[in-house]
């Protein structure tokens, strides 16, 4: 592991919890990374795409009326997101089902693949989550104005509040609207990154023989928690996307 790099300086205890997030080229020696370079990020994103393909396309290849194991999981994922979109956004939200399913499958696959030891986790990077969140933000804003025209602005004008309060609320609503992509992206990357970093910190303590059993137990416990977080964060990201989309489709409070 990368923790062996600057060994002697602090007498055996080495913490490089963030090294696992370094983007480096997959081929070649140079440390420079151009936009087209095939990096470890490329590799693990491609794996996420392949895993999605394997589960949803190969899993459902037989089209059995009585599903097998893989097809059951694929149908479960389909039904899970389909129901979420329908429940939150209504029938007209189903147009965006493939889009939301894409977000969910990519995030959940990247999260779980990132739990493989020595793996790189694309979703731990703000560059990735910011793009995902901005895509949602722009989609929601465009859909809101296209569907409702200027009436979309009623999202910021709380008609149920007293008239005197409405301008104040409008400012708050406006700020909260523009903070959405920030919180949306930092929540995902922050959770994933924090968990992975904490595991690495515990792993650093394992160098001390007395503490190492505690460290192994702690890593195991954290890993279990991370498995949960990997799914929950994908779920949270998806459900928030649905909620934002609902605002665009039905802006009235």
């Amino acid at each position: 592991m990368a923790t062996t790099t600057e060994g002697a300086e602090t007498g055996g205890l080495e913490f490089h919890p963030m090294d696992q997030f370094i983007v480096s080229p997959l081929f070649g020696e140079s440390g420079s990374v151009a936009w087209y370079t095939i990096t470890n990020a490329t590799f693990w994103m491609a794996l996420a795409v392949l895993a999605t393909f394997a589960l949803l396309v190969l899993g459902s290849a037989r089209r059995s009326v009585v599903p097998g194991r893989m097809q059951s999981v694929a149908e479960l994922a389909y039904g899970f997101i389909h129901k979420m979109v329908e429940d939150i956004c209504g029938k007209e939200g189903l147009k965006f089902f493939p889009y939301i399913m894409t977000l969910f499958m990519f995030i959940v696959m990247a999260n779980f693949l990132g739990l493989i030891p020595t793996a790189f986790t694309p979703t731990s990077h703000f560059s990735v989550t910011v793009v995902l969140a901005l895509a949602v933000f722009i989609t929601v804003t465009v859909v809101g104005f296209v569907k409702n025209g200027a009436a979309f602005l009623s999202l910021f004008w709380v008609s149920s509040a007293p008239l005197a309060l409405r301008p104040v609320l409008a400012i708050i609503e406006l700020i909260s609207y523009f903070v959405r992509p920030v919180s949306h992206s930092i929540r995902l990357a922050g959770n994933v990154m924090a968990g992975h970093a904490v595991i690495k910190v515990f792993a650093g303590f394992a160098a001390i023989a007395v503490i190492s059993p505690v460290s192994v137990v702690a890593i195991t416990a954290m890993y279990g928690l991370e498995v949960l977080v990997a799914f929950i964060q994908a779920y949270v990201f998806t459900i928030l996307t649905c909620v934002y989309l609902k605002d665009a489709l039905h802006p009235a409070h």
Partner: protein
Amino acid sequence: MATVTTSDGLAEAASTPGMPQLNFDHWGNQIFWLILALIATYLILSRVALPRIGAVLAERQGTITNDIAAAEDLKVKAKEAEAAYDKALIDARAEAQQIVAQAKANMQADLDAEMAKADAEIAAQVAESEKAIAEIRAGAMENVQAVAKDTAEALVAALGGTADATTVDAAVDARMKG
């Protein structure tokens, strides 16, 4: 990372003290590959996976609905068959009763006809017999007349008279009528 060699790791660490996430030199690379990955995922899902899974789910729903409808159909058919059977039974019973009644009526008619015929025969025989009796009676009367005439003639002859046959006959006839 296993792939991070010493020189690489040092170079990266030097360029990003703290979080590699905030090394904006790498953002372009990640964003490019992310967009590619998302487009690939979207195409896979929207072109192949989602329509297929949706079709499988719809087909299953259709199969279940059809099976339930078929079961409902069969149930209705079974009820109809039962009703038809019951009806046939009732019809057969009614027909049997009708046949019995008809047979009874036929027999009664035959019987009546035979009785009437027998009555008519009996009546004819009675009439014939009466006629015969009447003939016999008429014959007897005639015989009695002849005997009376003969007797009267014999009596007249015995008493010493000359019996005129026509006179005696007239006298006997007058007497018999009276």
